[in-house]
């Protein structure tokens, strides 16, 4: 089948899965409804009721890694089509991409030396 049909099928599977999940939800609510009681809906934290909200400026300590991820992700986007035609094109392809990868790798090494690759 051509790609439009394929994506149509995928859309169908997506809707089908969502439908399956909704039917499970319907089944569960047919069995019974959730009873609202005091303190039942407070997030469970080991026995002490905590009402402080958890949505704060979270200090993710891996932001050095996350910045580096951006560059490598862009690189991977370019590598997919390159990999498909690689064998056809030959050594030139290896050299071209090799230069690109080497530059990015140098970036990785630089980040490492500057202390980006650690728990901040």
């Amino acid at each position, binding site marked *: 089948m051509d790609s439009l049909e394929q994506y149509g099928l995928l859309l169908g599977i997506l809707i089908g899965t969502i439908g399956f999940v909704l039917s499970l939800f319907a089944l569960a609510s047919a069995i019974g*409804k959730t009873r609202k009681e*005091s303190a039942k809906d*407070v997030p469970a934290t*080991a*026995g002490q009721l*905590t009402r402080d909200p958890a949505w704060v*400026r979270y200090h993710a300590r891996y932001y050095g890694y996350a910045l580096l991820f951006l560059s490598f992700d862009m690189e991977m986007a370019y590598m997919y089509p390159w990999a498909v035609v690689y064998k056809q094109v030959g050594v030139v392809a290896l050299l071209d991409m090799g230069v690109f990868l080497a530059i990015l790798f140098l970036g990785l090494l630089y980040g490492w030396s500057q202390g980006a690759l650690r728990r901040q």
Partner: protein
Amino acid sequence: MISGARLGKLSGLRRLVATAISRDLTTFVIPGPDIARAHGLDLAAAGLQIVASPRHASVLLVVGDIPLALHDAATVIYAQMVRPRALFILGTEIFSSLPDADIMSRLSQDGLIDGVQQLRTAFAEGAFRLDVADFDAPALQIRIEYTCSMHPEIALNEPGSCPKCGMTLIIRETQASTGRAHTKQKNVDVSVDEQMATGNEHNAHHHMSDAAKVEFTCPMHPEVVQDAPGSCPRCGMNLEPRETKTEHTHDHSQMNHDAAVQYTCPMHPEVVQDGPGSCPRCGMNLEPREITESETNEHSGMDHDSTDHSDMDHGDMAFMSMIDVTKNLPRSTDGLPMEWTEAPFGPFFPGLPGGLMLTLTLDGDTVADSKTQPLFENKELLPQVSPDIVNFIQQITRFGPLSPVAFQLLACQALENAAGLEISANVASARIGALEQERIANHLGWLALFAQQTGFNWLQRRAASLQLKFCLADMQQIATLAADIQSLIKRLGKTPLLKSRTVGIGKLASDSNLRGPVARASGVANDVRSTDKNYIALGFEAVSQTQGDAYARLQVRLAEIIHSLKLIQVSGAIERPTPADTGEISATGEASVETPRGMAHLELTLQKGQVIAARLETPSTYHLDLIKPLTEQQALADALVAIGSLDLSPWEVQSREIQT
């Protein structure tokens, strides 16, 4: 019939569901699976599956004595469970704030199996009922009040306007029983201009109302300080109250606790940090500067809760840059201002010893601060003693649910010391056999808890099953189990990642106040057994390591297991200590015993054969205080490993006011 059933008629699909639930009994254990194992209960063999969160559990299993301080927590856990839920009590615990136990049974493996049978029938027939009542308790109550974000001391019962500044009052939830106040966020639309960081109430504000000296300052212009309320001469906003620097309680502010000096950039005075470094704007080295009162605004509601505050009408306010917005937020070690949250990690946290009341202040996933609370309010562990000897021994044993034999031995030895009785060498070495057997069982239990904490499934199952078999083993069985234990220890030595999870974590310097394996791992050779003649006769050697980190403690405990096995073999007999007949004497006596956690010391006074006074000192009291320095600025996982490596028993901790 179970009281926590769901509403509905038990027919058709619901009957199928009830049967499925009765075969899939997910359990939350109070106070913890480690206590259950110490009582010799094999929960998996009985058909119960232990889960980590009350939301996944249908059965609340209560094992043994629960002190009054934990009753509220048990109520909260029960309230947070999903229906259908059942309360299964082993022993004779009576809760005033929980419903009647659905199933009660004896505290033994047989009792457990019987109880599980009854539980299955109860669920299969009672998971759905036609009449269901809500569960409520005082510990779960909240009280809604209305407060002004700028003037948190105002608390009215109806919405309206603040009498001081005229702003609309916002809702605040207060836990009715304890009076802790928290702010409920009203709307989530935050714009940078409205970030005031003053509307939040938490414990610190209570200190504010208790403080004698209060000043008024403008949140936008901290250099404006007055003694009376009024409005800021710069922007016209109402001044808000703030404690003076001397009465600050830094419960959740900066990690650098010697906050007398701060570092600032000469070019950019708004850059203020607690530690030296370089200015993020221009790169110059920061210079130290004394804090003046106008600059320490860390009090005004800093914090961790919330990015949003009331919808205030601030048409006249100037634009607030990110510097102003984040000026009062606590700074982390890398200089970024982030908000901190307080999360409870106790008392019933899987992976930590059951009963440990711990609250951690998290900065992302780093621990910025920690708070622990002892279980017993009294300054002395034994404010009153039971005069009868047998009851007294039982009272002492209750302090060590994880190591009852050691405490029993302690009481017996103290009584014998008071009466001046000599114990024969045979009896002494049989007692040593029992104590060492318990030590091995304890260390295996600690290994199982450590494995649960670090997600090491094989070790958890193996150590737990060995512990359960070891508790009840006689001499022959011990000989066979010894080989299993040896192979476990050998395999542990070859486990990848174990070293990286424990080396360098929880490092403690040598300190003479440390006890037990924690002390021996730091090179402090504190061991009661090295001066005991009976032990020396059996060929006792103390173990020690020097690094003082979690790995060293693990090694010390493993080595102790091996040595204890040898001691049991040499002693040749196991017999639990029983009190000798002391007669009608009046004397004082004392004894020290090396419990699996360290030295415990008991002094008692007898009068005419009855105990009239006693004083008990236990190892975990000092170790509880070590949690704070050990977890400072550690990643959460490392902090939990460090706390676990201390092998605390919260049941034997006395309040910290009296230290000996």
